[in-house]
C-alpha cells in the first residue's frame, strides 16, 4: 500500500449542516482537493433511501474511507448506521466471499462538543474517542480493512473562528498526506488521535 496517490472517499454525515459552525469549515477546505471525493450522505439521501449499488461502487473506487461526522451518543449520526447496515453486506464486505474492501483503510474525522479532558478516564465521558469507536474499529476489521486512529476535533462548543480555521488546515494537511502516502503509519497507529501529533506522523515515507 505504498502508492503515492490514494483515492480518498469522505462520507460526510451531518443532519443539520446549516447550523454547523465547525464541520462546515472543515469540509469547505476539501472542495478543491484532487483525489478526494466528498459525499454528503444527508444531502444525497434525505429520506435515508440509500442506493446500495452506488455506495458499493464508490467504495470500490477509493482506497481510503473517511467517516466524517459529529459524535452523536458516542457513535455516528443515524444515517451512517443505516449506511453500515445496508452497504456492508454479507458476501460482499464480509463473510467467506466478502473481500471487496480488503486492504482499504477506514478512519473517522469526528467532532465533539466537549473538550478533550472530558474524554478520558475520570472525565465526564470516561473513555477516549478512540476507545468509544471500538464497535466501528471491529466493523472495519471484519471487513478486512485497516482502522486508523481518528482525526478528532474536541471542544467545538466554545471554539473561536481562528481555532476552527487551524483545525481545517490540519484536516486538509492530513488528507493530503494520506493521499500522497506520506503518513508514517507506524507512528500513526500508536496515537490516540491523528491530529495530536500531526507533525511527527507526516513527512516520512511509509515503511
Amino acid at each position, binding site marked *: 500500500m505504498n502508492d503515492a496517490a490514494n483515492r480518498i472517499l469522505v462520507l460526510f454525515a451531518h443532519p443539520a449542516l446549516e447550523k454547523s459552525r465547525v464541520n462546515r469549515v472543515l469540509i469547505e477546505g476539501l472542495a478543491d482537493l484532487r483525489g478526494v471525493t466528498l459525499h454528503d450522505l444527508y444531502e444525497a439521501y434525505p*429520506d435515508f*433511501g440509500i442506493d*446500495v449499488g452506488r455506495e458499493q461502487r464508490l467504495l470500490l473506487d477509493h482506497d481510503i474511507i473517511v467517516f466524517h461526522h459529529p459524535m452523536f451518543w458516542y457513535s455516528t449520526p443515524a444515517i451512517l448506521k443505516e449506511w453500515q*447496515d*445496508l*452497504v*456492508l*453486506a*454479507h*458476501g*460482499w464486505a464480509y*463473510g*467467506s466471499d466478502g473481500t471487496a474492501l480488503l486492504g482499504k483503510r477506514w478512519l473517522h474525522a469526528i467532532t465533539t462538543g466537549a473538550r478533550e479532558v472530558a474524554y478520558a478516564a475520570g472525565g465526564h465521558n470516561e473513555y477516549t474517542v478512540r476507545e468509544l469507536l471500538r464497535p466501528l474499529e471491529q466493523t472495519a476489521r471484519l471487513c478486512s480493512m485497516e482502522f486508523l486512529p481518528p482525526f478528532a476535533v474536541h471542544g467545538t462548543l466554545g471554539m473561536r473562528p481562528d481555532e476552527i480555521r487551524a483545525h481545517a488546515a490540519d484536516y486538509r494537511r492530513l488528507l493530503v498526506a494520506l493521499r500522497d502516502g506520506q503518513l508514517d503509519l507506524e507512528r500513526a497507529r500508536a496515537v490516540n488521535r491523528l491530529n495530536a501529533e500531526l507533525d511527527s506522523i507526516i513527512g516520512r515515507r511509509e515503511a
Partner: protein
Amino acid sequence: MHGQGFFFQAFVYLAAAVVAVPIAKRLGLGSVLGYLIAGMVIGPFGLGLIGEEGEDVMHFAEFGVVMMLFLIGLELRPALLWRMRGPILGTGGLQVGVTTAILTAIGMLFGLPWQTSLAVGMTLALSSTAIVLQTLNEKNLMGTDAGQSSFAVLLFQDIAVIPMLALMPLLAVHSGQGTAADGYGSEAAKHATTWVEGLPPWEQTLVVLLAVAAIVLAGRYLLRPVFRVIASTRLRELFTAAALLLIIGIALLMTQVGLSPALGTFVAGVVLANSEYRHELESEIDPFKGLLLAVFFIAVGASVDFQLIQDRPQLILGIVGGLMLVKFTVLFVLGRAFKMGLDQNFLFAFALAQSGEFAFVLFSFASQNSVIPNDITAPLIAAVAVSMALTPVLMLINEKLIQPRSGTRESVEREPDEIHTTSAVIIAGFGRFGSIVGRFLRANGVRPTVLEYDSDRVELLRKLGLDVFYGDASRKELLEAAGAQDARLLVVAMENHSRVLALIETAQKHFPNLVILARAAGRPEAYELQDLGVDHVYRETLDTSLRTGMDALRLLGRRAHQTYRSARTFRVHDEESVRDLGKMRHDRKAYFSAARERIQSLEELLLTEVEGPVEERDAGWDTDTLRQEFGSGAG
C-alpha cells in the same frame, strides 16, 4: 406636404423612429436622443414632413407621460412611498424650493411682477420625468445612488405639480381671459368648457381636491370589483380596453377640473399598487406607453422652434444656459450636501438639469389663468424644448468625458430594490396544486410571487394575505412585471396544458435564468415537457397514488417500513421509465395516434413491471446468506 391624413402621419412618425433610433443606438446616443433628432429632421424646420399639427400630436402623445406616471404609481405601494419619504421630501423638496426661489428672484430682477416670476420659477424648477427616467432606464442606471435620488426628486416634482396647479389661479395678476389654452393631453378639452371655468379661485382649489379624493376612493373601493368582473370574462382584449378606459376616464375627469391627468393617473396607480391586477395592468399599458412616449419625443424634437431661435438667438440661448446652469448648480450642491459620490453627483445633476414636459402644461395653464402673458411663455417654451433636447447630449458628455476623469466610479450593480421588490420564486397557477407548493414555501420563509388567471380565486387568496396577482402568466410582459429577470425559480402549476406549454416557451426564450419546475397531468404531458427540455417535471397524481397504494398494502397487513421503501423504489423506477419512454417515443412510426400511443405506453409499463419486480432486496438486512454460511454451524 402634410395633412394627408392619419395614415400618412403615422407612416412618417414610425418611419422616422425606425430609421433614426437604431442609428442613434448604434452610435451610442440612446433612444431618446434618436427620437428627438428624428423629430427635428421631419419637423417644420427640417424636412417639413410634419408641420403645425406636430403640436397637436405632441399634446396627444403627452398621453404617454400620463401612462408612464400611472405605471410609476403602480410600482409605488403606499408603504414603499413611505419608506422613500426621506429622499423625496429632503432632496426633492429642497431642489424644487431652492430652484424656484432662485429662478423667481432672477425673474423679478428682469422686472416681472412677483406673481409671474413665481409661476415661471416653479414651472421651470420641474424636470422632465419622461426623458430622465427613459434615459436612466436605458443606461441601466436606475439602481445607482444617482438614479434613486433622481427618481425621488422627480416624484416630488410630480407631486408638487398638484399644489402648483392649485396655486396658479391664485396668482392671477390681470383679469381677463388668457388665450384658449387646452388641457393637458386632451384634444377634447380644447373645445369643451371645463367645469371649473368661471368659479372663484378657492372653489377651483376645492374642486381639485375633491377630484383627487374621488380617484382615491374609487380606486380603493370601486375599481377592484369592476376589474374582477371584467377579468372573469377571460377576454384579454376586454381587460386591455378596461385599462385604457380607466386611464382615459381619469384624464378626462382631471381635464374637466383643470388638473393634470398625469397626476390623476399617478394617484390611481398608487391606489392600485396593492391590488392583484397590478402586474396585468402594467403589462397592458406598457406597450402603449412606450409607443406614445416615442411619438412624444419625436414631437418634442419637431417642436423645437428653430425660427424663434434664429430670430432671437441670444434670448433663447441665454434662457437655456441660465436655466440649466441654475438647476445644475442647485442639484450639484444638494448632491454634495447629501454626501453623494462625485461621479454619482455629476450624473444626478446632469440628468435633472433640464425643464420638463410639465412646463408645457403649466405654461398653458398659467396663461389661461392670466398669470403669465403669452409673449413671455413663447420663448420660455422654446427654451424648455431645447433644454430637453440637450439632456441626452449632456448625459452623453458626462458619460464619455467627465465620468472617466472623476475617478470614484461606483459600480452600478446595486439592487434597485427601492422600486422592485422581487421574489426568488414565481408560481404560475395557484389552484389545488400550486397553492400547496406556495403554502409550503411560505411555511419555510420563502414568499413567492403568485400569478393566477382566475379572478375569483385571486380575490379570495388576497384576503388571506398572499402576494397574488391576476394575469396570464404566459405573457412575457406579465412575467417581466412579476420580476422574472431577477427570480431564480418558476413553478408552473397551471391546469391548462396548452397554456403551460406557452408559458414555458416564453420563459425559456426570454428568461433563461429561470429554473423551471413544471406540473404535468400525466405521462403524455410529462413527455411534452421533457421535449421542451424541462428538467423538473412532476406528474400531479404520482405521489398521491403511491401513498394510496402504500396504505392499501399496509391494510393488507404489510409492514410499514418495507412498504414505504417499496413505494420509493417504485417512484424512482417510474420516473426513470418516463424519461426513457419519452425519448423512445420519437423513434416510433409517426402514424401512431395519440390514443394508440397512450395504450402502448401503458402496455410497456405493465410489461416492465411484470418482468422486473419493483421491490429490491435489501442485502444488508437479509439474513438468508448469513444463515447459509453460519446457521448450520451447530448442526
